[in-house]
């Protein structure tokens, strides 16, 4: 029992499984998720294990599934995720699955290949289409341009030529010939003008052009035009922009050179007939072929889509199945084979309380496999430290996670998580006290809790959201507690509520108020009713602008210290539970008792002084106990510890609050100081004596073991942390010395550390007030009717800032400080956190983090 306060009791068990039944049994255990298997052949590498073949086949199947998934995602087909988890299929079904995946993969690959080939074809045709279309334009324009160079000396011919071009616009052949004719008419120039046409990607074009110019010494003529619409690259589906070019040149030498350059720049050349009629014909042919290709491409896409849609329906299911099979074989690989090869031997950690359910699951597994021999679960004796297993539910899980983030508890150590459920939100709320901000936080938490199922179902990779959602119960509790402390501080968005009516009254008459800038209300007179405001701060402090902070600081500082000391005493008392549980008498007497005495006599005494001060001194009391005589607790405490003689008090006052205070203080300090050597030396000396005794009489077996810290080993020689080598005496002394110094100095610094409760609370209240006066007040201070519109705008601004700065940022900072108070100030008093977590073999967790699980299965 007591599983809430300590981790679960664990047992190391040996499990004998018949070879045929092993698969089914492990599958059942995986569904259960309560067994952590140990690797029995740690020195055998992954490739020499028994079921390596099966694991490899599963890997292959997973690869195929991932390929399918990738293709499905590429097409944007929704995958059906029912969230159900089918049972691990029988080993013989694996072949069916493999065949299915093989078929699917091959089909898909074939379709993809076809599609790629078709697309390449399509690309070529579209490029050709563009070439034909663009060259048409080139031929229309190019001739006059070419002509220009040669006609500079015969402008009248050029003019005539232009005329001709106008007339014979539709017949480029004639133009070319015409030009040829013109050129031929020049003496000594009887050359044929050739050309090549092609397509090149746009970014390569300038370099290409330069290269052509240089290599051919400016003897070629390049024209280019952009293809406006991007073309699809068939290999990777990228959109690429390309340009059409056409190069005119003279002679074969230049032709080879140009072709080589084109090749070098990966430009694709296309045959382009010279005759316009041929070109037109070719264009027609290309168009029809493109259309044909389009229909074929469409059909291929349809086919691919059909295949993928069919696969998408089952994909998640298949993934689960394959991962389960793989996990089972991976687990079977951890087992030992016995000599007869008839059964597998496994070792596993099992929670004692669950042995029954595990045996039931094993029996189910045997029945399913049709085996006659039942599996044997056999408890083993071990000296090893068992793993730490804290049962959690959705509520305690987040709190346990906070504790485990510091360190997983040692086996059967006191678990601070249950106390954290209350202390964490409370200490947070002390720093965050504001009804308004608390309400926002609580509503957010409540919304997440109410919509829990829906929100949990839509898994996201948004890390921040996952953190918020994981801590929804913490957030809700923090919000509710903050509303409570906000009620105590009487703060709602930095304003106070006057619910019960202030217990202070203004007794000044109008003229006094009119003539004085500042007035005091004295608690000694009838200004104060004599009884405090029923709950929390009196709202009168809202208008006491000059000494509100002074008053609140005194109050908040004191309660911070009070809470801190109580929290630390609680931590020390927890260590008592640890010592008694581990039967560590030595630590109980020489650590726990002096620690507690030290803390009580010094710091708890200081807390008592605060209460005495609150109780004894009042403005209405007679002289030695009036408010002006109240001593400062801090000064009193410093004088007490340093044995100073206190300063003489004011006239009519007394130094001490009660009779015999000086004597009590001296005695307390002396006892507390006396505790230090006990902590420092008590345990090591006892151990030394015990060892000497053991050397004389080895049979008594008084092995006094000492772990590193408070509850390390068992004084009575119990099995728990038994069998490591005895530490050197000097090491024990050093450990104890460090531990003692840490505790003594720690209790001083930790007490001071709790002042952060006051500091953050003050900062939060001030920030809230600044936000109100600097933002919302501006909106409210507008005169006239348009102020309403102004208020609307300013309010939205103020609301966003409130959520962003005060709730989110301040909340985060208060959260971190609370976390620190728990990890350092509270847990250092008793918590070792040197255990290791129980990681049961569970299908749920394997499937949840699918990718990583397949990673560590290698």
């Amino acid at each position, binding site marked *: 029992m007591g599983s809430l306060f300590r981790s679960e009791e664990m047992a190391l068990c040996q499990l004998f499984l018949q070879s045929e039944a092993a698969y089914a049994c492990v599958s059942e255990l995986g569904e259960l998720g309560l067994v952590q298997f140990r690797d029995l052949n740690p020195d055998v590498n992954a490739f020499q294990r028994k079921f390596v073949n099966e694991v490899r086949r599963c890997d292959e199947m997973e690869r195929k599934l991932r390929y399918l998934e990738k293709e499905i995602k590429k097409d944007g087909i929704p995958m059906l995720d029912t969230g159900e988890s089918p049972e691990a299929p029988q080993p013989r079904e694996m072949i069916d699955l493999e065949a299915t995946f093989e078929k699917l993969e091959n089909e898909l690959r074939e379709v993809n290949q076809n599609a790629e080939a078709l697309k390449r074809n399509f690309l070529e045709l579209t490029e050709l289409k563009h070439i034909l279309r663009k060259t048409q334009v080139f031929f229309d324009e190019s001739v006059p341009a070419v002509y220009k160079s040669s006609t500079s000396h015969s402008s009248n011919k050029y003019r005539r030529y232009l005329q001709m071009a106008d007339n014979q616009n539709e017949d480029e052949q004639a133009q070319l010939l015409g030009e040829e004719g013109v050129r031929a008419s020049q003496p000594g120039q009887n050359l044929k003008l050739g050309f090549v046409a092609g397509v090149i990607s746009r970014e390569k074009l300038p370099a290409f052009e330069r290269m052509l110019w240089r290599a051919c010494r400016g003897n070629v003529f390049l024209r280019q035009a952009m293809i406006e619409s991007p073309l699809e690259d068939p290999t990777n589906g990228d959109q690429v922009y390309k340009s059409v070019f056409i190069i005119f040149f003279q002679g074969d030498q230049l032709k080879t050179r140009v072709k080589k350059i084109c090749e070098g720049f990966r430009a694709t050349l296309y045959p382009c007939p010279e005759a316009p009629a041929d070109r037109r014909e070719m264009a027609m042919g290309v168009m029809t072929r493109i259309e044909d290709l389009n229909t074929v491409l469409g059909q291929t896409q349809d086919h691919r889509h059909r295949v993928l849609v069919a696969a998408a329906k089952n994909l998640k299911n298949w993934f689960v199945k394959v991962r389960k099979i793989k996990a089972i074989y991976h687990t079977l690989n951890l087992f030992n084979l016995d000599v007869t090869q008839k059964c597998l031997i496994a070792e596993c950690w099992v929670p004692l309380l669950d042995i029954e359910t595990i045996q039931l699951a094993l029996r189910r597994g045997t029945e399913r496999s049709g085996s006659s021999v039942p599996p044997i679960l056999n408890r083993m004796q071990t000296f090893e430290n068992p793993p730490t297993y804290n049962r959690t539910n959705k509520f305690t899980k987040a709190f346990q996670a906070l504790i485990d983030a510091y360190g997983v508890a040692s086996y059967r150590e006191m678990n601070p998580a249950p106390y954290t459920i209350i202390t964490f939100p409370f200490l947070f709320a002390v720093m965050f006290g504001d009804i308004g901000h608390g309400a926002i936080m609580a509503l957010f938490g409540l919304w997440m809790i109410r919509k829990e199922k829906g929100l949990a179902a839509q898994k996201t990779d948004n890390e921040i959201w996952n953190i918020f959602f994981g801590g929804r119960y913490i957030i809700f509790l923090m919000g509710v507690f903050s509303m409570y402390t906000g009620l105590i501080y009487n703060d709602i968005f930095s*304003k106070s509520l*006057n619910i019960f009516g202030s217990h202070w009254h203004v007794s000044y008459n*109008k003229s006094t108020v009119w003539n004085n800038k500042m007035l005091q209300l004295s608690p000694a007179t009838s200004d104060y009713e004599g009884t405090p405001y029923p709950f929390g701060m009196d709202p009168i402090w809202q208008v006491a602008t000059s000494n509100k902070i002074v008053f609140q600081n005194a109050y908040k500082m004191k309660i911070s210290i009070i809470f801190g000391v109580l929290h630390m005493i609680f931590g020390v008392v927890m260590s008592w539970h640890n010592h008694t549980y581990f039967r560590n008498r030595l630590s109980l007497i020489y650590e726990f008792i002096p620690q507690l005495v030290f803390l009580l006599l010094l710091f708890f005494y200081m807390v008592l002084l605060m209460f005495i001060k609150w109780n004894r001194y009042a403005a209405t009391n007679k002289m030695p106990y009036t408010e002006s005589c109240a001593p400062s607790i801090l000064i009193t405490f410093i004088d007490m510890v340093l044995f100073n003689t206190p300063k003489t008090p004011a006239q009519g006052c007394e130094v001490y609050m009660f009779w015999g205070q000086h004597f009590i203080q001296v005695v307390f300090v002396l006892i507390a100081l006396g505790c230090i050597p006990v902590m420092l030396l008590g345990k090591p000396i006892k151990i030394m004596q015990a060892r000497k005794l053991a050397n004389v009489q080895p049979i008594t077996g008084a092995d006094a073991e000492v772990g590193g810290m408070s509850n390390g080993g068992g004084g009575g020689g119990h099995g728990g942390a038994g069998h490591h080598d005895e530490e050197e005496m000097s090491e024990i002394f050093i450990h104890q010395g460090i531990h003692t110094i840490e505790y003594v100095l720690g209790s001083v610094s930790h007490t001071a550390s709790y002042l952060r409760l006051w500091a953050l609370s003050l900062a939060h209240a001030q920030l809230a007030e600044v936000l109100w006066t600097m933002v919302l007040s501006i909106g*409210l*201070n507008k005169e006239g009717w348009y102020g309403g519109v102004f208020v*609307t705008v300013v*309010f939205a601004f103020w609301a966003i800032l409130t959520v962003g700065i005060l709730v989110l940022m301040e909340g985060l900072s208060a959260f971190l400080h609370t976390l620190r108070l728990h990890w350092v100030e509270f847990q250092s008093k008793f918590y070792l956190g040197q255990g290791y977590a129980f990681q049961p073999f569970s299908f749920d967790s394997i499937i949840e983090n699918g990718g990583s699980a397949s990673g560590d299965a290698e």
Partner: protein
Amino acid sequence: MKICGPKCSLCGLIISVWGIVQLVLMGLFFYIHSVALIEDLPLKEEYDSLDEFYTAANSAYNQNAYNCWIAACIYVITLLLSAQQFYMNSRVTAN
């Protein structure tokens, strides 16, 4: 008709609800002349007589109360607007 996206409309929805609740209450507190809110009134630094101060404060309290309620009414409008937007967005995602 869709103007803003799902997040924007949700933000508008939340701020509107918050604004309505808080501004109606603040208007109420201004209306009953709550002393805690005196710093938020459009008052001058100095007044010549007590009565003058009282009349100015009283009218400022009432004015601020009405302003808060006006703002709350505006938030009712934005609430309706963003609710309609939210509805449109949720319908689009549902389809």
